[in-house]
């Protein structure tokens, strides 16, 4: 599963976003997610990818694509399992 797909799963399962609304260009604001949701998203991503995401990094995320890019800079690639 790609990093994007895994992020989508977090958004759907943990944050209640509708799958159809998710795209790389979709902003968190468009997905009706506020700053508290972004912290919750970061907790989900930390759990899913086994990385650490700082508060400032989480606050800087604007789009779903930004989240993919941030995680890939942390060495996250396609899951091997």
């Amino acid at each position, binding site marked *: 599963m790609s990093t994007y797909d895994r992020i989508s799963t977090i958004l759907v399962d943990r*944050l*209640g*976003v*509708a799958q159809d609304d998710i795209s790389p260009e979709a902003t968190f604001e468009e997905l*009706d997610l506020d700053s*508290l*949701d972004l*912290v*919750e998203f970061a*907790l989900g991503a*930390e*759990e899913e990818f086994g990385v650490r995401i700082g508060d400032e990094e989480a606050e800087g995320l604007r789009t779903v694509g930004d989240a993919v890019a941030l995680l890939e800079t942390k060495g996250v690639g396609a899951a091997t399992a």
Partner: protein
Amino acid sequence: MTAAQRDVAVTGLGLVTPAGIGVDASWAGVLAGTGTAATDPSLDGVPVDMSCRVPGFDAEQLLGRKASRRLDRFVQLALVAAAEAVTDAGLHPATWDGARVGVVMGCGMGGAATWEQQHARMLDSGPTKVSPLLIPMLVPNMVAGHLAIELGALGPNLVTATACASGATAIGVARDLLRAGAADVVLTGGTEAGLTPLSIAGFAQMGALSRRTSDPPSASRPFDADRDGFVAAEAAGVLVLERDADATARGARVRARVSGYGASADAHHITAPDPDGAGAARAMRTAIADAGLAPDDIVHVNAHGTSTPLNDVAEARTVRAVVGDEVSITSTKGVTGHALGAAGAIEAAFTVLTVEHGLVPPTANLDSCDPEVDVDVVAKAPREQAVPAAMSNSFGFGGQNAVLVVTAA
């Protein structure tokens, strides 16, 4: 004080109770007089594994995905009840003068389920994994905040906590805000959704709960000789209150009036009622006098009637002492169980419906009345009775008493 200054009109009702979602379903369930308690799988392993839950409450379907995820159930129940109440009152949040609309809700516990889930997360994964939504989902005042956000109610906004009297206290405070001119419309009532393993274990350890887990529907049996405690419930009830003159001016249907409110403290014990009932009696007398009535004017009482051995005997004795033995008494908790901070609100709503329809719901499971309960408890079937004035009693742990007097429109 003239009647016009004293009374406030009940122009809308909303109910979400174990007897059903909506006023019609809840009222029909209460009139049917069958206990709603059932074995509760979420309480598996707790010594008392039964409760009264709202049947078929699907938060995602009723409120959407976001609300179903970001709001604790005590807020979800209240949002559904409030929407019904506002519609019933014929009010339009899109166009009303929000600054003149207040919200006063009662709640005993707040987001108990959220608290327990996040505590488990912290123990499993550490404090840095706790949800940022913990606090906004947990704190009891948030129910009033969410009603304001949802409906654009910009006036006084608060939550009362007097344990099992919270919902009745809220209605009394709302009435006071209207009398004081602090708002023109107040959405008021109570909500509770604390059916979690920890809170039920706590109530069980107090000895407050019925142990009749082998036959849950018969477990809540107010005033019955074989009662052995209450059954915990979840529910929300919302009333729309307005000053009489305002309701009349806009042509609203007045379902009944809240004419009196009395509050008092037992100052006796943290959980046991004062055996002399002095505090409860003071609240009843205050409420009746506040309504400009004499004790004889009260012809019906919706009792606190929890189904605990101590409450029901003490309450029956006190009611008899205050308003005599010719009143009819019922406890709708036989059907709904004890919805704690919501109880006073849903019972005020049932009292409004009793006054409106001239129909007293029966006390479920009253097979053999406790010989020490020397009052006229309505059992088996609804009783037709003209009810110009009724009293709704609520008593909270901590010795906090709230009594409302409801009169016919």
